[in-house]
Structures are given as C-alpha cells and as structure tokens.
C-alpha cells in the first residue's frame, strides 16, 4: 500500500536553534506571521498555531548535577502510523498518505475539533475564522514531486534529514552510538512508530510538551472501537428482538373487559 514509507529525523544534538525550518515552513506553506510579544525567550511564537506548524522550543534545563543546558526541540506533527487524529476524524480530512504521513485536507474539514482532543502530541490547531484545523503535512505537495520538505531543505546543520523509514531509524541509532549512548531515540516505539523521529540529547521526560509514553487515548479506543460499532449492533439487536417478539409472541393485544379482573 505504502509506496515508500519515509521518516524525518530530527537530531536535536545538531540543532543550533537557528529557526530556519520555522521560516521555511511559513514560506513554503504561505502561512502569515503572527504578532507576538517578547517574553524573554528566543522561542517565538510561544506555541504552535494554526499558521505555525513547526517551532523550535527553547528550554533552560538544569541537570541533577547542577549543570545547565539550553535544549532546543523542533516541535510539530509526528505523523503517527496509528494516528489518533485520523481515528477520530469524521470527515476524512485527516488521512494517511502513501508515505505513511498524515495529510490534512481543509476542504473536507468540518471544524469539529475531535482531532485536537485526541492527539497525544497536542498538534492540530483550530482557526475560528475558517473553522478548519491546520497542522504540518510534511510538505506533502513537495514529497509528491520527490522534493524534501521545506524545513529539511533549510536546515544548515544536518539536524533535519529525511529518507526511507528503516534507514532513518538505523541512522538515529548510529548517531546515539556515535554519542557514546548519551542520547535517546524517540518515535520508533509507540503508536506503531511515528514518521518523525528524534535523537534527543536528554531523556524524553526532561522535555516540555513531549509525552514520555504517547498512545491512543483510552477514550478514543472506547469511542471508536466499542461504542461506535455497538450503536449499530445495539439498535440492530433490539430491532431484531422486536421482530422476533412480534413473530413469536405476537403483539400485545388489548384484553376484553371481563378478563381484566386483577384489581
């Protein structure tokens, strides 16, 4: 089915937080800038927005030994293989592509926001004006033309790279080896593997806004795998029982007066 499953590797150990990817994303996807305020951090804007599909998170981190580190992490859609957003989307606006990534088709989106509630990574953003959701689609229109995503193209340090899934996972583990094991691969183990994978310089639990064990929320499983089919099964079953009752027991006829002596 999938012609060529691809993975974008984000090697945070190589990231200098130049934010070229952030700008390239806006440029290629023609996303307007937002008016922001300086809050004393290079992180700008403060969070993903409908018009900001990727951003570098700047985090000041102090280790247990007191050493200080400035952590940079490029945030954005992880393109899950088993994506909660696709599971809950009623319109088909969110769908899997031939590359294994998750595409979003605004023409189909009805703005129900179910995907926002379901995403374990808190990625989709809602635009109240257009009543649509937006997120990174890994530059699907570029991938289709054998071009690499704008963010990867812009990256000057090699922190971003993209390629075949197996090769990129291998590359990630090789990089960890290169760093004497002082780094962590994130993304190949949960939700059947994401199509964006990190080499993190710290354990995942250190990072802000990064779930340590992302998974399809239990409510989504209950909703889609149990309640949804059982709506039809339940209504069908009682309709069937009613039909059987009608055929076997017969309708509940009105008694004649002389039989009604119960009082």
């Amino acid at each position: 089915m999938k012609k060529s499953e691809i993975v974008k590797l984000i090697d945070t150990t190589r990231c200098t937080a130049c934010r070229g990817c952030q700008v390239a994303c806006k440029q290629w996807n023609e996303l307007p800038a937002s008016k922001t305020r300086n809050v004393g951090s290079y992180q700008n804007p403060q969070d993903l927005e409908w018009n900001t599909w990727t951003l570098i998170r700047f985090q000041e981190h102090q280790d247990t030994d007191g050493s200080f580190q400035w952590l940079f992490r490029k945030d954005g859609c992880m393109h899950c293989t088993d994506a909660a957003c696709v599971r809950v989307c009623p319109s088909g606006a969110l769908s899997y592509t031939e590359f294994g990534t998750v595409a979003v088709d605004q023409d189909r989106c009805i703005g129900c926001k179910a995907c926002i509630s379901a995403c374990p990574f808190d990625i989709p953003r809602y635009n109240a004006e257009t009543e649509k959701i937006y997120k990174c689609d890994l530059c699907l229109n570029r991938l289709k033309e054998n071009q690499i995503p704008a963010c990867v193209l812009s990256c000057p340090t090699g922190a971003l790279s993209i390629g075949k899934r197996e090769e990129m996972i291998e590359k990630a583990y090789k990089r960890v080896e290169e760093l004497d094991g002082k780094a962590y691969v994130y993304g190949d183990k949960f939700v059947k593997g994401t199509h964006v994978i990190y080499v993190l310089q710290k354990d995942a639990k250190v990072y802000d806004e990064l779930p340590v064990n992302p998974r399809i929320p239990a409510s989504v499983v209950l909703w889609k795998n149990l309640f949804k089919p059982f709506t039809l099964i339940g209504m069908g079953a009682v309709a069937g029982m009613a039909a059987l009752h009608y055929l076997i027991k017969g309708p509940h006829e009105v008694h004649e007066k002389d039989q009604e002596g119960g009082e």
Partner: protein
Amino acid sequence: MSHHTKDMVRVTDATERLAHWLLAGSCLVCLISGLGIMFQSWDIIATVMGGLYATKWIHTFSGVVFAFSLIYAFFMWRKDCAFEADDAKWIAKGGGYLWETSDLPPVYKYNAGQKLFFWFVVIFGILIIASGLVMWLWNPETFSPAVARWAYALHALSALVIGSFFVVHLYLGTIGNPGTATAMFTGWCSRAWCETHCPRWLEERDKKA
C-alpha cells in the same frame, strides 16, 4: 372531537403530544445525522443533508431542540414516571410481554417499562446534551483536551443507549401494542386499551367524572 364515541378515552393532552413529537423528532434527526457523521461509509446521509458541515449544524441545532423538549418533558412526566413498589413486580413478570403471566400489578398511567424508558432518556439525555455542549463549544482555553475527548466517548455511549431504547419504544408504541399509537396522534385510546394499559388511572378518572 365529535368523532370520538363514548368508548374512547382521552389519554394525552395537546401539550404532551407536542412535547413528545418535538422530543422524538429532534431525537430522530440527531440520530440520523449523528450516524451520518460517525460512519464515513454512510456519507449518503450527509450528502442528502447538504454536506457534512451542514449535517454538523443540523445535528447541533436539533440537539438544542432536543435539550429544551427534554427539559419540558422531564417536568411534565416526572410525577407520572416516579417509581412505586409494584413496579419491581411488574418488571419481574416481564410486564406480560415475554411469557404468560397472571396478576400483573395494575398500572397507573405508565407501566414500569415506560418509566424505565423515561428515566433512561432523561439520564442519558442529560449526558448527551452536556457532552454535546462540550463538543460544540470547547476549545483548548475552555476545557482540557482530556475533558473534550471523554465528552466524545460519553456522547457516543449515550447515543448507543438512547438509540437502542428509541427502537424499542417505536416497536412498543406501534405494532407491538395495537391501539397505542393514537395516544400520541389524536390523544384518544379505546376504553378497552385503557383497561389493559392503565387501569388504575382509568378508574380514578371515571370516579372524578
């Protein structure tokens, strides 16, 4: 109502019937549009309703009608649907619907099955309205995504319960109990029907008359 003979008894007034049909009609519209939204393979429903986006709003606004008619119905029928000691006996005998029974406890206005239906609709109606309001109005500033996603699950569970009871009600209110449906159309049922379905109520009514 000159066409009603003395053998007919008026069992519902116009307000009850209006509330019933508002509740039933909005429930049906919600049910059909909801199934159209939940099952992508049934996109014919959304197509007929003018697209999925239009279907979302049809669902939302019929949900509002459902909410108000449910509130009205609750205050109108809660006394008639309050449980009494004999209801357990009625349930234990399957209401006479499932096997032959003798001496069913005589029913006042509504039998225990109808009361159960009423309370299930009230409870799951409240849940489906509350969860629906969250789904409609939430954004990450008002409710956390966790609250919202449990609202979606709760909404689907409530739809399952109400939808299934809807089918039971449809059967028992029509072909399952011949002579019943007129209670919600003309408001009149036969005296014999009343003697079968609500004998204590009929007795009290006759005494008053």
